[in-house]
């Protein structure tokens, strides 16, 4: 192994860190797509790199067993992997898998709780609306929301949540959540969450044809939330202010050219880096030719 082994992952982690800090001058639709792709691919590369270093470290420790491994799983150079690199790689890969698994279990639990409630009204005075994805899902609303909002405001909420369900936004959130669970990429996850909310806001604004109404509805529901219990979560920017600001301004440009171009470029770049991290070229070369 050489420094090139970790290069693809290092490049992607750097890209993710940068994307979490800059505000992409794109329509939220493209913004969300670029951020989700980057987050997902970075998570794949992190796990892939850790896995490969761990496998090769194991091969260093037990050369006899290594002979049974397929050629592509090993770095070409027969040089042993030093303990300094190998031990952390094994530990980090195991921790990474555990974290990813725990995140998945948590999603399943949350979704099950929410699906149990879908189709019923939540018994709380706090105005709440949650998009519950998947079969048996739908829009979960609370009694406080139904009581507190006028019909046209309620329509805004349903258009917003409907957009989440229609565009399967939970998959975007899953990519960001896994990346943030594996790596210190909370900012990227935050930017992605905001982009997804803005996407649904824009969809709602288009459906009801009144941006100011959407802005007012969001503000009204946000101001009716009870203060968070316990110490104020100082770091957590809910994004509500930026959503309302954006809706009070002019609609964002569609980015019919720049959006797809940037998205494709990002997908190609991160996709090929992830493929390199997984040594897919070696794996493919090892396959018997089918023609």
């Amino acid at each position, binding site marked *: 192994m050489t420094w090139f082994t970790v290069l693809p992952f290092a490049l992607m982690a750097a890209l993710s860190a940068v994307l979490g800090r800059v505000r992409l001058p794109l329509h939220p639709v493209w913004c969300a797509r670029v951020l989700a792709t980057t987050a997902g691919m970075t998570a794949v590369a992190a796990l892939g790199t850790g896995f490969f270093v761990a496998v090769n470290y194991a091969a260093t420790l037990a050369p006899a067993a290594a002979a049974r491994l397929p050629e592509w799983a090993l770095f070409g150079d027969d040089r042993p992997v030093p303990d300094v690199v190998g031990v952390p790689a094994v530990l980090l890969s195991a921790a990474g898998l555990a974290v990813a698994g725990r*995140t998945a279990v*948590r*999603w399943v639990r*949350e*979704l099950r*709780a*929410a699906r*149990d*409630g879908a189709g019923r*009204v*939540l*018994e709380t005075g706090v105005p709440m609306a*949650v*998009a*519950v*994805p998947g*079969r048996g*899902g*739908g*829009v*979960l*609303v609370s*009694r406080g929301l*139904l*009581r507190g909002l006028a*019909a046209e405001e*309620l*329509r805004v*909420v*349903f258009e917003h949540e*409907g957009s989440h*369900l*229609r565009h399967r936004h*939970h998959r975007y*959130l899953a990519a960001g*959540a896994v990346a*943030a669970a594996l790596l210190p990429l909370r900012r990227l*996850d*935050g930017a992605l*969450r905001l982009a997804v*909310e803005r996407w*649904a806001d824009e969809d709602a604004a288009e459906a009801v044809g009144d941006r100011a109404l959407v802005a*007012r509805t*969001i*503000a009204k*529901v*946000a*101001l009716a*939330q*009870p*203060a*968070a219990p316990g110490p104020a*979560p100082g770091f*957590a920017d*809910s*994004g*509500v*202010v930026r959503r*309302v600001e954006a809706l*009070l301004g002019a609609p964002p440009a569609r980015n019919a050219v720049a959006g797809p171009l940037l998205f494709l470029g990002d997908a190609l770049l991160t996709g090929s880096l992830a493929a390199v991290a997984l040594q897919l070229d070696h794996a493919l070369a090892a396959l018997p030719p089918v023609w």
Partner: protein
Amino acid sequence: MRDVSRRALGQLEAEVLAALAGLGGDAGTAELTARLDGEPAYTTVGTILYRLYRKGIVTRVRDGRQYRYRLAVDESALVADRMRDQLRHASDPGSVLSRFVRTLTPEEERKLRELLGGAE
């Protein structure tokens, strides 16, 4: 996907529920129809109420030749409380559920009031 949109609480269903909640107590179909925007047909509202009744979201009692509806009170308050707790975390990092809005920080609340003050 189609499945979800069919099962999701529809727009008109939500409006009927909102009207029912706004009235506080129970209401008949005609009263509710009058309170809805866009004047939907009496029979449409009747159908929606029946659907909500079948889903267990509203209860009804016979009053002469008609039914009077009210929002079903969830007896399993405990279950609802637990779910509310789960959903409180729905806006935390790491969740796949997206809540309409998240809890504001005091600073955000101040800014938001400023923004709205400027708009009105």
